[in-house]
C-alpha cells in the first residue's frame, strides 16, 4: 500500500507548486513583455498611476511599458483623432497563442452571447506525422475586411463599414436573411436564434441558482455598439446576424477589446494602423505577417504573425 503523505507536507508541496506556477507565469509574462519591449512614447498622454504590487514593476518600470499599457495609451491617442483617420487593426501572434480560449470566453461574457452565437472561436490545427508533428491555435475574430463580401449582399444596408473601418451590424435594421453569413468567407457571422442557456434547466428557488435567477442575468442588456439591448421577446439582436465588432463600445470608452485584455500570452494586439508609431503598425510591417484567405482579395484587417 502506498505510504500516505502527512497533510503538512502536502500543504508544503502544494505551496511549492504554487510558487513554481507563479514564477513560471511571471517568467512567461516577462518573456512576452520583453518581446514587445520598446521605448516609451514621449508623446503618449500621461497614464494613471499604476497599481502597487508586483505588477508595477512590469508596468512602468524604467523606460519600458507593458504592451497592454502601451496599446491603451495608443488607443487613447487615436481617440483624440477624427474617427475617419483611425484604422483599427488586430494582430494575432500565432507563436504566442496557447489555445486557452480565454479570449473566446471573454468575448462571450463581454457581449453576453447566447448559445450558438460566437464571435471569436479559436481553431486548433494539427499537422504532420509523429514524431514530426505541429500544432497551432488560430483565433478567428471578424476580419473587418476592407472589401467585405458581407456588405454588398445585405438587402437593407444593415451591415456596413463604419467610419473607422469596422464592419458593424445595425440590429434594428437587420431583417435576418443570413445572406451575409453565406457571403462571409471566414464564417465570422453567426445567427441569433433566440436561445438561452437556462432554457429547460430546473427551477429550485432558494436552493440553487436555477432558471429564475440566472435567466434574469441572461435577459439583462448587453452594450454592443453602445446601446443597451435587453434580451426580451423577439427583439434584436434575436433574429439577427451577429459578429465581432472589435468591442467598439469598449474602444470608444478608451478600453481595449475584451479579447485583447484577457489574452494571457499577449498574443492578441490591437491598435490604430494609421499611427506610424503604434505597436500594430510596426508588427504588420514584419515579413512574417499573413492574413487569412488573402487570395480572395477581401483585405482583412486582422493580421497573423506566423
Amino acid at each position, binding site marked *: 500500500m502506498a505510504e500516505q503523505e502527512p497533510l503538512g507536507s502536502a500543504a508544503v508541496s502544494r505551496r511549492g507548486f504554487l510558487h513554481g506556477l507563479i514564477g513560471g507565469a511571471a517568467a512567461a509574462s516577462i518573456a512576452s513583455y520583453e518581446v514587445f519591449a520598446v521605448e516609451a512614447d514621449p508623446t503618449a498622454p500621461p497614464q494613471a498611476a499604476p497599481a502597487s504590487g508586483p505588477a508595477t514593476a512590469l508596468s512602468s518600470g524604467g523606460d519600458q511599458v507593458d504592451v497592454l499599457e502601451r496599446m491603451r495609451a495608443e488607443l487613447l491617442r487615436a481617440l483624440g483623432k477624427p474617427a475617419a483617420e483611425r484604422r483599427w487593426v488586430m494582430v494575432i501572434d500565432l507563436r504566442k497563442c496557447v489555445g486557452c480560449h480565454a479570449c473566446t470566453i471573454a468575448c462571450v461574457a463581454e457581449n453576453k452571447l447566447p*448559445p*450558438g452565437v460566437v464571435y471569436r472561436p479559436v481553431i486548433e*490545427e494539427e499537422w504532420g506525422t509523429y514524431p514530426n508533428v505541429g500544432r497551432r491555435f488560430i483565433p*478567428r475574430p471578424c476580419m473587418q475586411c476592407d472589401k467585405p463580401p458581407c456588405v454588398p449582399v445585405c438587402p437593407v444596408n444593415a451591415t456596413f463599414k463604419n467610419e473607422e473601418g469596422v464592419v458593424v451590424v445595425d440590429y434594428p435594421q437587420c431583417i435576418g436573411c443570413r*445572406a451575409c*453569413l453565406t*457571403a462571409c468567407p471566414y464564417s465570422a457571422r453567426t*445567427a441569433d436564434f433566440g436561445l438561452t442557456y437556462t432554457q429547460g434547466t430546473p427551477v429550485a428557488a432558494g436552493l440553487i441558482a436555477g432558471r429564475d435567477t440566472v435567466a434574469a442575468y441572461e435577459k439583462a442588456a448587453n452594450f454592443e455598439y453602445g446601446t443597451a439591448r435587453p434580451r426580451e421577446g423577439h427583439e434584436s439582436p434575436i433574429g439577427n446576424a451577429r459578429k465581432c465588432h472589435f468591442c467598439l463600445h469598449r474602444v470608444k470608452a478608451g478600453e481595449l477589446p475584451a479579447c485583447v485584455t484577457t489574452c494571457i500570452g499577449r498574443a492578441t494586439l490591437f491598435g490604430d494602423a494609421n499611427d506610424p508609431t503604434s505597436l500594430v503598425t510596426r508588427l504588420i510591417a514584419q515579413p512574417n505577417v499573413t492574413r487569412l484567405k488573402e487570395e480572395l482579395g477581401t483585405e482583412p484587417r486582422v493580421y497573423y504573425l506566423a
Partner: protein
Amino acid sequence: MITIKRALYMLAVIAVVLGIYGFGSRLLFGERDVNYGSYVNWGLWVAMYLFFAGMAAGSFMVASLDYLFDVALFRNTGKYALWASAVTLPGALILIGFDLGHMERIWKVYLQPNFTSLLAQLVWSYSTFLVVSTVALILAIRGRRTALKPVMAVGLAIAIFVSGGVGALLGVNAARVSFQNAMLPAQFPVLNLASGIALLLVMVGFFGVLADAERRTRLVRLLSLTLVVLLGVKAYFLWVDYSQALYGQTQEAVAVAGQVLFGPYAWAFWIVQLGLGVVMPAMVLLVPSTSRRAPLAGLMGVFVLVGLAVGRTSIIFPALAFPEFDGLTDAFTGPHLGLDYTPSLMEWSVTIGVLGLSTLAYLVGTDRLPLFSKSPEVAR
C-alpha cells in the same frame, strides 16, 4: 369512386392541417425550433422557396405560349399555367418570409433597399412579378387577350430575370466554390421552364384541361417530348457540375460533389433526383403511347417536379455544409453550430403546409374562378 381531384383535395387539406403546427411554432416562437444554423445557414425553406419560385416563373413562361405567342396547341392552357403561377408564387414568398429572422421588417427592403444586393433586387422583382401576374390574371378572367399581350411580355421578361437572379443570388458568393460559377444563373431559367412544363403536364394529365381529346393527346405528346429534352439538358447540367468539380480536384468542390454523390444522402441524388426525376420520366414519356394515357404522363410530371425539388436541396445544403475552416465546428460548439443538417419537424410542417395551401388554392380556383367555369374547354 374517388376521383383524382377529390383525392388531391383531401391530401391538400391534410397537408394544411399538418402545417398548422409549423405555422404556429414559427409565428409564436420564431426560429427556435429550426435546424438550420449559422454554418448551414439556409435550409429546407430556402431550397423549397427556390422550387416554388421556379414553378411560378416556369408556369408563367408556359402561359406565355398561349397568351403572348398564340401557339395554337396551347390555346386555353394559358389560364391554367397562369393560375398555377399565381398559387405557387405566394407559397415561395411564405417560405422565404418564414426564413427571415425578422420578417416583420420586410418593408425595409422596399423603403430602404440596397440594390447592390441580389436579395433586394429579387424582392423587388418578385413583388413586381406578383403584381404583373395578378394583372395578367384579371385580364385573362375578363377575356381581354389583346391587353394581356404586353402584360405577358413584361411578365415573361421578369420571370426569366427572377429565375436567373435566384441562381445569381447563390452564384455571387465567392466564398463558396460550389456556388460561385456562372452556371447557376444560366441553369435556373432552364430548370424553371422544366418545372412549368412538368406542372402543365400534371394539370393536363390529371384534369384534362382541354375538352378536345385529340388535341389533348397531341398536347401531352408535345409536353412530354419538350420535358424529355429539358430533362436531357438537366442531366447535362448535373454532369457538367459534378464532373468538373471532381476533375478539378479543388478540396471544397470535391468535398461538396462527394457529399451529393456519395454522402449519406446520396440516395436522394441517385434514386430520387436522377432515377425518379430524370431517367424514369424520360423513358416513359418517350414512348408514344404514353400520350394517350394522360394520367400516366401526369404522374411522370409529378416525378419530374419531385426530382427538381430534391435538386434544389442538393444545390443548397452540401455547399453550406462544407466548413470554411477545418476544425471550425470543434473550436466552439453549441446549438446551430454544426454542419449536419436535417430539417426539423417544424420546418417540414411549414413546407408541407405551404404545399397544401398552394394545391388547395389551385383546386379551389379551378373550381370556382370565373376564368375556368366560363370556359367551354374545361373538362371535368
